[in-house]
């Protein structure tokens, strides 16, 4: 009887999640009347705005990942190594983006960095891009920090640091050659989550008026029928691809650290 309910719950859950996706995918293939076709996908892929926004978001995602790694890895490492008492406070700060809406953050940015401020980042395209990258890094902070912190927990950073120091290594060498390679899988997990967040993000990009993929999806959804469905399917595939890669690298890590 127990098994029956367990299977029942599983099947209900699968139907709940999968049916809308099947419906959406089915709809996205019905652009040509009466037959299944990939016309909607072809239209989306052929749209120069798609290419422009998608490329922009990918570049922003890569920049955000690099910035996030440079910000988070040394911070999490230093907190674990030298300031363990500060860990709860740092964790609290990194969780704030989950409770403060993106719109609040971006309005704060606009107020602080507008053209009449002491640091007028919004006054130029590069400045706005940098501001957007900071915003994305803030949104991804809870995931990136937790991911890296979990990775650091798995290795004995204090002893590895001391071993490297006794061999003559300075802080930069220790971070670049010992710590980062040993938390690389955790960093990659954080990076894939960051990538997924940046690709779908709408609020910040729209309010900072940057040609990102999120606003493009919203624009398309408001004006077209089949293309938004195709775009949503593509977006899902991309996100799932990222999650799949996280699983793949996690498995790689397990293999690499198994005892002899």
């Amino acid at each position, binding site marked *: 009887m127990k098994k029956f309910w367990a299977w029942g719950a599983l099947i209900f859950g699968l139907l709940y999640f999968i049916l809308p996706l099947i419906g959406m995918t089915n709809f996205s293939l019905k652009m040509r009347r009466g037959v299944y076709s990939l016309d909607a996908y072809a239209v989306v892929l052929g749209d120069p705005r798609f290419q422009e926004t998608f490329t922009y978001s990918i570049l922003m995602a890569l920049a955000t990942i690099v910035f996030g790694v440079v910000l988070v890895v040394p911070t999490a490492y230093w907190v674990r190594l030298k300031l363990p008492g500060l860990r709860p406070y740092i964790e609290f700060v990194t969780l704030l983006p989950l409770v403060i809406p993106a719109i609040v953050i971006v309005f704060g940015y606009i107020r602080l960095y507008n053209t009449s401020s002491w640091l007028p980042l919004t006054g130029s395209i590069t400045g706005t891009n940098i501001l957007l990258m900071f915003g994305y890094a803030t949104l991804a902070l809870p995931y990136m920090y937790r991911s890296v912190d979990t990775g650091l927990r798995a*290795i*004995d950073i204090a*002893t*590895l640091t*001391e*071993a*490297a*120091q*006794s*061999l*003559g*290594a*300075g802080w930069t*060498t220790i971070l670049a*050659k*010992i710590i980062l*390679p*040993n938390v*690389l899988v955790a960093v990659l997990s954080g990076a894939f989550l960051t990538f997924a967040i940046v690709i779908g993000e709408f609020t910040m990009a729209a309010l900072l008026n940057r040609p990102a993929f999120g606003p493009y999806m919203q624009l398309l959804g408001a004006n077209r029928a089949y293309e938004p469905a195709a775009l949503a399917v593509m977006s899902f595939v991309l996100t799932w691809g990222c999650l799949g890669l996280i699983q793949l690298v996690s498995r790689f890590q397990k293999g*690499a*650290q*198994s*005892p*002899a």
Partner: protein
Amino acid sequence: MSFLTLTSLQKSFGPVQVVKDFNMSIEKGEFISFLGPSGCGKTTVLRMIAGFETPSGGTITINGKSQANLRPNQRNIGMVFQAYALFPNMNVAENVAFGLKVAGRPKAEIDQRVKEMLGLIKLDHLADRYPYQMSGGQQQRVALARALAPKPQVLLLDEPLSALDAKIRVSLREEIRMIQQQLGITTVFVTHDQEEALSISDRIVVMNAGRADQIGAPADIYNRPATRFVANFVGTLNLIEAKVVDPASNRVSIGDQGVTLREPLGDVKAGDTISLALRPEAGSIAPDAKGDTALSGEVVSTNFLGSVIRTRMKVGESIISFDMFNSPGLVPPVVGETVTLRFVASDLLIIRD
């Protein structure tokens, strides 16, 4: 002038002083062991030499140079840790080469030195292995090679054998000693295992509550413990309460049996209680046993320990243990039997606290 000198070294963590006025001079090429129970401060002293802890007071000099303003990576000190601490992302050869690469040595020299070091630890065939693919003993040998590769001026070993099983410990400690003698490197070894310290050291520092209770050669430490703590900590020792009978003739009584000591009693008077120490292996109950001193007592227990049989007998208020080498024909005494233990009076040491 000594190679490594620790002068009035002190270390406090908050209100707790873990190292108190520690003084030590180590000669070049010497193998020194810091021996003591957990929390006695031995690892803290080692970490201060390495630069991982800043002394609260005192100085450390190596080859005449103060280490006070040098960071750990500027001291040229090799260190081997209890937890191996091999870099998991690097294979054996890369681990050994790490210190040389950091020092910016030419590639040819690095390759040559790595080969030499792997040959020294007899692991040339495992150069491509990663740490997780090796046993604990192999990993610790690689850690030793890695620490030695940059030719450090001092080698520090922080309980490097503690995580290994008994057989590997014995073979690896012999290997460490052999390599140390071969390279002539000044070495400080931290352990809580007295057998390890006794077997491989030129000198031992027995530490107790942040101080060096006794510094001496292994035989001195074992045969002539300076304090009650050293006597208790190093080896098994009988501590016997005795009453002074005649200080002038070094005569004391143990229970109702009189004994004349070789060592002068010093500043005591008749009727004072003193502590004497006797190693279990110092006496024998065999009928043909030699010795100028004898104590009789009733056997209270007999324990078979493999190569030896340890028997405990009661003399006055003291319990004295003695060992007999096991042999197929040996009949150990039975509980309740009265036996006579013979030994040389000079083996009976006065313990001064």
